[in-house]
C-alpha cells in the first residue's frame, strides 16, 4: 500500500528537481514519513527506497545512523532532555530523572498509552538556556522543575504543547528590557 498520496509524491518530485540525484532527498522523505507514521517501519522504509531510487538496505543504514529517525514506535510527545556538559552543570541530569519518574519510563521507552517517550539527548544547541528540555520540536530553556512538570501536565490535559516561558533574545535587547 503506497503511503504517499499523489499530491505528496508530486511535492517530492518537485523537491527532487533541486538536487542532481533523487537519493539526496532521502532525509527529507524520511522526515515526511516519520511525521505521518510516528516512526519508520518496514513499509515506510520500502516507500522511501522506491521514492528515492535506492535499495531498502541503504535506507535501513541511513535510518540507523541518524538518532532522530526512530526504528521503533515512540510517544506522540517525545520528551528530550539534554545532559551534556553545559546542561549537566546546571541540573540537566536531575531534570532527566525527574521527567523519567513523572512519566514512569526509562530512556528511549514510551508510555503504555503511546503518548509520551523520553530520550536523554546530546547537546541540542541551547547551552545558553541550560538546563533545557524539548518536546517534539519545541525547546523549553532555563526550565525549572516546576515548569517542566507543568509542561507534561498541560499536554496531558489539553493535548497540545504549551508555549515556552523562556524566549531567546539578543543579550543587548535583554539588558535594555531589564533597565
Amino acid at each position, binding site marked *: 500500500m503506497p503511503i504517499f498520496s499523489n499530491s505528496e509524491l508530486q511535492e517530492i518530485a518537485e523537491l527532487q528537481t533541486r538536487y542532481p540525484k533523487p537519493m539526496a532527498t532521502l532525509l527529507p522523505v524520511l522526515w515526511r514519513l516519520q511525521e505521518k507514521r510516528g516512526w519508520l517501519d518496514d513499509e515506510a522504509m520500502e516507500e522511501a527506497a522506491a521514492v528515492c531510487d535506492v535499495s531498502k538496505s541503504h535506507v535501513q543504514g541511513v535510518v540507523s545512523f541518524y538518532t532522530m529517525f526512530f526504528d521503533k514506535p515512540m510517544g506522540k510527545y517525545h520528551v528530550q532532555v539534554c545532559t551534556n556538559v*553545559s546542561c549537566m552543570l546546571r541540573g540537566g541530569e536531575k531534570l532527566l530523572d525527574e521527567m523519567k519518574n513523572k512519566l514512569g519510563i526509562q530512556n528511549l521507552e514510551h508510555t503504555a498509552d503511546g503518548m509520551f517517550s523520553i530520550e536523554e539527548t546530546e547537546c541540542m544547541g541551547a547551552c545558553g538556556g541550560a538546563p533545557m528540555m524539548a518536546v517534539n520540536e519545541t525547546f523549553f530553556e532555563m526550565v525549572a522543575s516546576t515548569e517542566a512538570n507543568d509542561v507534561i501536565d498541560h499536554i496531558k490535559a489539553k493535548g497540545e504543547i504549551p508555549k515556552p516561558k523562556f524566549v531567546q533574545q539578543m543579550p543587548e535587547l535583554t539588558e535594555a528590557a531589564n533597565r
Partner: protein
Amino acid sequence: MAENPKIVLPDIPNLRNIDTYVANGGYGEAMRKAYSMSPVAVTDEVKKSGLRGRGGAAFPTGLKWSFMPKTNDKKKYFLINGDESEPGSFKDRQIFEFNPHQMIEGILIGCYAMQIDHAYIYIRGEYAHWVRMVERAVGEAYAKGFIGPRMKDTFKPSGEGVAFSTELTVHKGAGAYIVGEETAMMDSLEGKRGYPRFKPPFPANFGLWGQPTTINNIETVANVPAIMKMGGEAFSKIGDAKHPGTILFGVSGHVNRPGVYELPSGTLLLDIINKHAGGVPNGKKIKMVIPGGSSMPPMRGDQLEGVMMDAEHLKAAGSAIGTAGIMVMDEDTDIIKVLTRIAKFYWHESCGQCTPCREGTGWLLKLLRRFEASQAMEGDIDLLYDVAKNIEGRTICALGEAAAWPVYFTIERFREDFEKRVKPGLKIESPNRVHALRRGGLEPVQLTVPVVVRV
C-alpha cells in the same frame, strides 16, 4: 568605528523581517558593490578582510574561496554548514533567529565570487523550529527576486560585474554530530550515512556529487555582506589583526548571564566571563574553562589571566578558538564527571569508520568511568593518557582529536584530580596494557558501575 561593533547581530529589532532588513540596507549596497566587481575581485576583497572561518578551524575564507576552479565548465556547489552540534556552541541559532537575511546575502555574494549556481544550507534536525524560520526567509527572498532566476533583473551588474543568478535550498539534518564535519556533511546531503571522507581529494576538487564544492560556516558567510559594505581593509582593522572581525561568543555553564555575545576578536576571556556574562554565581572561583566548544583543550582557572579570544592568542595560551563556545565551571565542579560526560559524547558520536576512534572513544569512556567511581587502578592515568594520544592523528577526520584533546589536556592540567580517584593497591598484573584495559574492571575488581557502555 564604535567600541563594540555589531556586525552579525546588530541591535535592530525585528531584523528577521525582510522589509526591516531591506530598510536597513539589506540586499542593497553590499550586493551592488559585489556586482560592480569581477568575481575574482570579490574573493580578493574577502581575502583582504582577513576573515577566517568561524566553524572551528579558523581557515582563511578568501583563500578557501580561491581554491575553487575559476572556469564554469563544471557544476559547482556552495554548502553552508549550520549543523552546529559541538557542545557549548549555540551561536548559529541566533543568526537563524535574528538575522537570517544577512546570512542569505552572504551566501549570494559567495556564490557570485565563486560563480556557483546552487547553494545548500544544511541545518541540524534538532533545530526544526529554526529550519522553518530560515525556509521562510529564503521563501521571502525568492518572492522578492533576490534569489533565483529573477536575480538577473534585481541586481544589474555594472563595471566589471557579470550577470548572475543562483538557487538556494535549505536541507534539514536528522541528528548526527559528525555531519558537522565538512566531508561527512556532503555525504549526508547526498542521502547517505554521514561518513567523513578521506582528504585529499579536497572538496574544492571533489565535493558534492564529485563536483567542486566550498563549505563555509553560517557565521562566516553572515560576515560577508559587512565586508562588502565597509571594504576588506576596514574589516581587517576590527579586533585582532590576525583574526579580524567580531566573534559570536556563546557563554554557558556557571555564569550569571549565559548567552551569545558579539564582541571583537581578541577580547579578554575574563572580560567576556565577568563583564558580559555577569561573572560566576555566588562569587565562586573558576576551576576550568573550555574556550571553544567541548573538543578544545580545557584551561585551568589560573591560566586565564590576560588570555585573548582569537585563534592565534588562544593557541599560544594552550587552547584553541574552535566555535567560541565558552563553557565555564566553578571551583566545586567535578572535573572527572565533566570529562566522562564529554568522553561519552564522543563515544556516542563516533561514526565508526576508523578503528582508533571507534574503539578508542569507548576505551576512554570505560577508563574514565573507573575514575568517576573512584575505582581507578594504579597506572590508569598513564593508560588513559596513552589511549588518548594514540587516537590523535590516526583518524580520517578530526573527531579523533576532538575526543583525545580534552582527555589528555585535562590530565596534563588537572592531574591531581585524577590522582585523588586512584584506589591505592588496585592493579592488574599484566605486561600487556591493552589486555589490562580489556579486562579492566571485570577482574580482579568488580566495579560498581557497568563497564559495558551502551545507551
